[in-house]
């Protein structure tokens, strides 16, 4: 069991109840779509996974460790077992493609040799070989998201978290990104992806968790 939520409730300091008594389990190797309208609690759920937010009530275990009771100093090490992909890519504009990926590896203390080897490898995996020295501003949206994914998998995470990764992309580009994520999942990485795009989810045959007003309203392998 990779992720376990037990009766997780989150109330923000402004009184908004973003999650309400959520309990669920995610197994190693699963691919999960997290669906629901804006404000349903998807972002909060995702922020809980890498402990940007803590629950107001309830328990969360990742690899059987409580991340609620976790000390502040341990959080970086939790996050090193995860990769995060953002809707707005969050690339560093003043660093090249290769530097953006190397940056993520440097942060976790990889050696320069490891970095050189692995950077070339992940750039190849996301199909950007030849663009190593381009800056994000010189790339299309789809290419930028591929850099984001390459950065997220560079440290070989157990869990890849993607928050609306195709939200800013057209349909064709989005499909390409999805293929890439499926590919990563096939190699053993658990993927949790929040999205609005029903057309991406409909025929995927993956587990779909739907949130509404902070509650899990369905958890099935088809879209209702």
């Amino acid at each position: 069991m990779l992720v376990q939520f037990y009766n997780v409730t989150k109330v923000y300091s402004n009184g908004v109840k973003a999650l309400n008594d959520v309990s669920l389990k995610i197994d190693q190797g699963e691919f999960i779509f997290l669906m629901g309208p804006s404000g349903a609690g998807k972002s909060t759920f995702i922020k809980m996974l890498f402990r940007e937010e803590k629950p107001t009530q309830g328990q969360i275990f990742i690899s059987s460790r409580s991340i609620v009771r976790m000390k502040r100093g341990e959080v970086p090490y939790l996050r090193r077992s995860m990769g995060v992909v953002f809707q707005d890519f969050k690339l560093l504009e003043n660093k090249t493609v290769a530097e953006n990926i190397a940056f993520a590896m440097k942060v976790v203390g990889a050696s320069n040799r490891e970095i050189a080897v692995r950077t070339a490898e992940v750039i190849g995996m996301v199909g950007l070989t030849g663009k190593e020295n381009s800056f994000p501003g010189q790339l299309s949206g789809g290419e930028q998201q591929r850099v984001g994914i390459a950065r997220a998998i560079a440290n070989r995470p157990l869990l890849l978290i993607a928050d609306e990764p195709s939200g800013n992309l057209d349909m064709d580009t989005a499909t390409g990104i999805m293929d890439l994520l499926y590919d990563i999942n096939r190699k053993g990485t658990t993927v949790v992806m929040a999205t609005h795009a029903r057309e991406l989810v409909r025929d995927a045959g993956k587990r779909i968790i739907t949130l509404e007003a902070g509650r899990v309203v369905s958890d099935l392998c088809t879209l209702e």
Partner: protein
Amino acid sequence: MNLKNFGYFIKEALISMSRNRVLSLATVTTMAICILFLGVAVLLTINAGNFMNQLESDIQMIAYLDDALTDNELQAIESVIKDTAGVQEVTFVPKEEALQRLQAKFSEEDYDLQQTLGKNPLPNSFEIKAVNPQEVAQVAQVIGEIPGIYKVNYGQGVVERLFQVTKWVRILSIVFMVILALGAIFLIATTIRLAIFSRRKEIYLMKLIGATDWFVRWPFFIEGILIGVIGALIAIGLLSGGYTSLINNAQTALFFIPLVSQQSILIQVYLALAAVGVSLGTIGTYISINRFLNV
């Protein structure tokens, strides 16, 4: 922090300074100006204090003696004064010398005072300095009661006013310095916060990827220290240049103000300012960065 990372941190700090050239320049300039003003305030305070000390140390008491005291009695009185609490220095001024001094004041007029007066009307006296000029009134009172002394002068009235003035000069110069120091801290913290704010996205990312707080902090600290050192060096250069030329050129015009010019004191001031620059850079960074680390 291991050594492998240290090289990386320095490189990151230098890259970030050159990529954020305008902000770095703004921070260095702010830092230099603040330290310069602070340095001016420190030098003013030191000089004001020095000048006030000098004014106060000029204060002395004159104890006038009865005529017709024998040499033995004079010596006895002198030793009593010397033993009085708070007395630092006693000098006997015989009446002949007193007359000569008076004569000296009239020297230009070229006439013989003694001849005019017929006899020497001035008494023998002791010139007395107090250990602490502020206590001169009390000491004068005690000495005035010694038999054989008929009067003690210390500039009654004027001295009290002088002490009022020196007290306020000291207080105001320190208040001035403290206000400047607070202003400098505020200004520098704000500038650094601005510089860090422009990179909050990078910090957020580093934290999400799994960077420890110190991994994020170090490059910023090194940057803060570098900016502090550069700012302080510029300020110290300007300040020492300005002050040296002030000593060389203005000392003749302002001869009545004794400018502090001992190299040892000045070097201490400059070193302290450099330390202030580094600490302001570090503290400013520490305060500013922590709010962005809370991810």
